[in-house]
């Protein structure tokens, strides 16, 4: 029996880790494979959804597409893998995906103990609560005894436990795996309240038949800086993802859009734009790419503001304000280090 259990343990262990046996850098592996392996969520309106043609679209897949454009010049060269809150880190650590671009909160233990590297923040969020309007609850502190739908394996699960404990009120946690499942349970009345990041709540609410029948509580109980992340240990790869995201943010700051990027790439009187788009210096070579990497990324998906407006901004059903996610020049938190 001992041998049997040992064998089974090893087999399970191998299944978990056997994929991660390559020794070359992630960039080389990605080039060899001809596609970027990107982990995304199972679907949150606006943030990650499939188009009518069946392609993944949205605020988060746009980051994958930008990186693919920077490397290959082709946004279709992305192999998407949907991950739940619970499977995402294992998928990344095991090499099933090479980057995650899904609503994942940057925390200390994930960055250190879980051996992952967050490369930046593409959405500053916080955890909120949503309840049916006819429940008549004005504040999250009035939720004593309520049933709360919560996605397992997330930071929101931990914040929720803290919030209720600190306020000395009780609740029943209804654990669910995905945003869709949460929606179903919430609509069926299995839980009174749904809690997740406020952006996710707004997105989910927009998909209801009657969004006005649901209210968001005023409390935001946590900081949730959401951003793309990669495995620990390959700094060159982390640099590519980090600076692609920064390129999108800088492009907005400098007024470079997918419309005018071609014209600007021929040279402007702003040296930073020239360095970004490759008409001056050779920043691309420093991260193992060519001069036009950022030009391709911006050309393909647009700058940060364009992506925001296209998928989740005011003119979309999601209807999110820029808020904290405005450029630092507009009073927001978006602040990319300089391209120099």
């Amino acid at each position, binding site marked *: *029996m001992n*041998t049997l*259990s*040992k*064998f*089974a*343990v*090893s*087999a*399970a*262990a*191998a299944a*978990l*880790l*056997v994929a*991660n*046996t390559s020794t070359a850098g992630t960039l080389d592996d990605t080039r060899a494979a001809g596609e970027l392996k990107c982990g995304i969520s199972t679907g949150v309106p606006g943030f990650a959804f499939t188009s009518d043609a069946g392609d993944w679209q949205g605020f988060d897949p746009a980051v994958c597409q930008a990186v693919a454009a920077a490397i290959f010049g082709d946004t279709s060269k992305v192999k998407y893998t949907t991950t739940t*809150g*619970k499977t995402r*880190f*294992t998928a990344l*650590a095991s090499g099933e995906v090479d980057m995650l671009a899904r609503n994942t909160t940057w925390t200390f*233990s*994930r960055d250190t*103990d*879980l*051996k992952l590297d967050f490369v930046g923040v593409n959405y500053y969020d916080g955890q909120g609560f949503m309840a049916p309007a006819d*429940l008549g609850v004005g504040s999250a502190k009035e*939720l*004593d*005894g*309520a*049933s709360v739908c919560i996605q*397992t*394996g997330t930071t929101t*699960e*931990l914040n*929720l*436990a*803290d919030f*209720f*404990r600190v306020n000395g009120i009780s*609740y*029943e*946690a*209804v*654990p*669910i*795996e995905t945003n869709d499942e949460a929606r179903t*349970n919430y609509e*069926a*009345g*299995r839980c*009174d309240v749904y809690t997740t990041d406020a952006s996710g709540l707004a997105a989910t609410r927009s998909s209801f038949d009657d969004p006005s029948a649901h209210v968001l509580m005023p409390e935001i109980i946590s900081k949730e800086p959401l951003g793309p992340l990669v*495995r*620990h*240990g390959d700094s060159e790869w982390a640099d590519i993802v980090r600076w692609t995201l920064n390129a999108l943010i800088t492009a907005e700051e400098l007024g470079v859009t997918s419309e005018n990027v071609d014209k600007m790439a021929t040279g402007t009187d702003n040296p930073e734009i020239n360095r970004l788009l490759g008409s001056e210096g050779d920043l691309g070579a420093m991260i193992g790419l060519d001069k036009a990497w950022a030009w391709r990324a911006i050309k393909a998906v647009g700058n940060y503001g364009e992506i925001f407006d296209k998928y989740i901004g005011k003119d979309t059903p999601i209807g999110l304000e820029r808020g904290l996610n405005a450029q630092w020049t507009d009073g927001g938190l978006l602040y990319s280090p300089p391209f120099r």
Partner: protein
Amino acid sequence: MATTIDMRGPPKSGFSIGKIWTDKKSRGVIVQVIAMAIFCAVVFYLANNVVENFQKLGKPFGFDFLEQESNYDINQTLISYNSQSSHGRAAVVGILNTLLVAFCGIILATILGFILGVLRLSPNWLVNKLAYCYIEFVRNVPVLVHILLVHGIMVHSLPHPKQAINVADSFFLSNRGFYMPQPVFQPLFWLVVAAFVFGLIYAFWYRRAARIKQAATGEQSPVFWVMLASIIGLPILAFLLTGLPIEWQDPVQGKFNLKGGMAIKPEFMALWLALSLYTAAFIAEIVRSGIMAVDKGQSEAALALGLPRKRTMNLVVIPQALRVIIPPLTSQYLNITKNSSLAIAIGYMDIVATIGGISLNQTGREMECMIIVLGLYLFFSITISMIMNWYNNRIALVER
């Protein structure tokens, strides 16, 4: 001289390498050694791969995290637990939840399975065909579908707690669970427990004495009635004499949910019912095959000897049928236990959901958590197997 036979077998000649292979005995040893070597090599390769990858990822290996605070809540626990408890305690909560659903599932599946199996043998055409249709439908649909179906029906079709189906203001059925009064034991209740234990001991002592008496004198005693009286009657008597030492706390409507009382959550009910209904279909077929395996001549002989039908069944048919039933029944019990891990699909917090799910995710200790979950399932399964094997040996045919 021609009648002398050499009893030492063929004459032994000198040693040669070829002989080792042509000799049946030594060839068997060689093949086994090679097979074992390959097996060890595979195990070593896999283990080595794990160690290497752990080093490459720079991940530590250890079970210290079990003592850290878990920081998450669990909605249904059999022992006290909160978000300040450790990951280890969360694992225990998960283990108990798994055992609870496996235990309840095994009992319900066995009862339903035996009933269905007997109905399947009924000479009544309609009863027979209904049982047949049920069995064929249920066992040909995957158990996960059953679980999702039952859970979906409960959550979507049962009323909201505010409009819960109310029976006598004590029992409430809603899509948040089945609420019932909670017993609050008064000090004198220990007398009832004592009466039950005493009754149990007396009942078995009486049964043993009755058997010895029957073996010696052939005289029969009313074993069933005496056992019933001492196991059930005595505690009830004690309960009445001590002045009903239980108070019932009814659930009441709160702002969001029913408060107080005991609650069976829909996740547990869905998992329990789905696993039981599914496994009962298999058990029914096992029971049917077991009963049909007993030769008709056996019961005819018993009847010819003048045994009444009931005793024929109890003393002749069932003991022989059990010998056929028990081994496959064991594997059905193991299936229930293992299938309970599908709890994750509907959010029932078993071991896979606690230590193998949330704890794994929050601490990033995939390997350690999976080893724990694997070891536990192995332990549960082996324990069930051992119990069933012991029972199987007990009822096995004693050859004289």
